């Protein structure tokens, strides 16, 4: 075996984070900086990913343990794995109805936000009108106020009109934040479509609604996906408005989770299982828009 061989082979085969180089005697001095250069970036990346994943791993870990095991000390993986926590969530109506309620208002909100934002974004992208720039900025400034500001007036208003404790209550309240965001994202994507396409369609004789649905929407499909993703995520994780505007019938999962301190103390395993199930919808939605998400964060502007 020549001295050069392990130097080349070791970094390629090495996927774990343990940086103990297999260096033969005599080659040690010259090999070390080279090893570092090869492994350094991988090591950094590995550490980064480990730190990112630790909390999530711990959540999954806990959700598969019994409360007794969680309380008894630290174990890196469940000694007696159990699905009991998940079983309880799927069988106990007070738990699974939380997910259903959350999904109801999240989907409602995403649909309303997109339906309102699509024409608005088209108008901002295609037409110049008095005060368009100010109006456009004002839209975004809605996002700059904390949700707490809106909680009180919205609570009182909904109580007065009988919307309180319905999925509509939360779905409409979240529009305050989601419509502006969706308009900004969609406007960016729409402005990337040449105006000549609209004109060509008009010259061909397409009516506006037909053009919008058949020709224009497919061209900004990525933007619609990204806008839907942001609406979904915001609405899914938002706690304050969702909790303020509901009590029993429309109680969302985030509210259920924060109120689960029983007489017997914290039910850690159950909460962890609920947490895992709460992450999953977001992960699924991200999967669908993964190719467009970077542009979405730039609000559609490239």
């Amino acid at each position, binding site marked *: 075996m020549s001295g050069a061989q392990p130097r080349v082979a070791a970094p390629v085969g090495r996927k774990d984070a343990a940086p103990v180089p297999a260096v033969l005697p005599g080659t040690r001095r010259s090999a070390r900086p080279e090893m570092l250069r090869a492994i350094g970036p991988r090591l950094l990346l590995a550490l980064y990913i480990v730190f990112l994943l630790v909390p999530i791993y711990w959540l999954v870990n806990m959700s598969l343990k019994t409360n007794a095991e969680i309380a008894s000390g630290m174990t890196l993986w469940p000694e007696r794995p159990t699905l009991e926590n998940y079983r309880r969530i799927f069988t106990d109506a007070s738990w699974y109805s939380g997910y259903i309620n959350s999904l109801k208002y999240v989907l409602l909100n995403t649909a309303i936000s997109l339906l309102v934002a699509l024409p608005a974004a088209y108008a901002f992208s295609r037409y110049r009108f008095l005060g368009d720039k100010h109006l456009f900025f004002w839209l975004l400034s809605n996002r700059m106020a904390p949700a707490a500001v809106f909680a009180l007036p919205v609570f009182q208003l909904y109580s007065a009109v009988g919307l309180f404790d319905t999925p509509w209550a939360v779905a409409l309240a979240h529009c305050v934040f989601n419509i502006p965001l969706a308009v900004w994202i969609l406007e960016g994507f729409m402005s990337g479509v040449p105006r*000549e396409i609209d004109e*060509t369609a008009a*010259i*061909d*004789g397409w009516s506006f609604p037909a053009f919008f649905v058949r*020709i224009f929407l497919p061209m900004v499909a990525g933007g619609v996906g990204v806008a839907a993703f942001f609406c979904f995520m915001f609405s899914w994780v938002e706690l304050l408005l969702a909790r303020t505007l509901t009590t029993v019938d429309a109680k969302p999962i985030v509210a259920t989770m924060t109120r689960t301190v029983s007489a017997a103390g914290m039910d850690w395993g159950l909460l962890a299982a609920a947490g895992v199930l709460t992450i999953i919808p977001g992960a699924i939605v991200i999967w669908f828009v993964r190719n467009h998400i970077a542009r979405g964060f730039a609000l559609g502007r490239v």
Partner: protein
Amino acid sequence: MSVSLEGIGLTAGGQPLLHPVTMELSAARPHVLLGPTGAGKTTLLRLLAGLDRPSSGRIFAEGRDVTGRPVRGRSVAMVYQQFINYPSMTVFENIASPLRVARLPRAEIEARVQGAAGLLRMTPYLSRRPLELSGGQQQRTAIARALVKRAALVLMDEPLANLDYKLREELREELPRLFAESGSVFVYATTEPAEALLLGGRVATLSEGRVTQVGPAGEVFRRPADLATARVFSDPPLNEAPARQGDGRLVLAGGIVLPAPAALLPDGPCTIGIRAHELSLDPLPGAVPIPAVVRVAEVTGSESYIHLDVGGLPWVVLAPGIRRPEPGEAATVWLDPRRCLAFGADGQLAAAALAEPA
């Protein structure tokens, strides 16, 4: 079919984008709008199409006033410089688009699309999507869509500008023929004088938002009505020299006397213009020698463009053959007065030749 404009103009924010134009467009010959970028060609095309509303004047199609009628209600087709197609549809559906909207019978659509695709040699690509095609094929898709519609008015805004040389030559030849057979009024905007001459037909030259002259291409080229037109219709740029008519003599800025009949020009300052291919580096009978300094020489295969400094003025001479004078070298340009254009102080053409052709 015919379209006529009566004082059509467009103003935006107090700035005139297009000064009022009055012209007749007929289906008999292609119409070319010639002018540099920003001259108002696209503005005029958009007004013709009905995409923009004119701030003054009226447009008539077939004698009926269509001013302000939205574009959907007009019989118009348009091809842009950028390749504009519907990316979500196949090439077939792209070409069929105006026919589908018009709810033509299926068989008729099929026949017309196949016909247009055949003419533009797009038949093998009908099931592809536009973004899977080359630029030339994308543009031919757009042209086919304009063709199948059989619109009364077909507008082309520098449709060949983004294509490669070979394709451009090919399509330039085919386009007027394709649309001549359809009986459409065909309007073609370009920045290239050569393209305007090759397409033939009638030319309207535009400069700074103004239509400077309308007429048969060859005639406008030979007798441009004013200095602006001559500049627009010259490539390489028109060689110009200030001159003065007085005491029965025409004197160039450098003191060179041009032989010209005394009655041809009014006394006072004027501008002499001559195109690059009319000048010569070799003695010509009847021509006047003018001293110059070579600045740079460009050889394009069988011809050479010699850029000269003539008394501080940048001139270009198109010389046949390969010539490579060194920069800084002295040269003599032979100026034939019979080929000079003379413009009065107001920029209007005073004489299309300073002497009768021999």
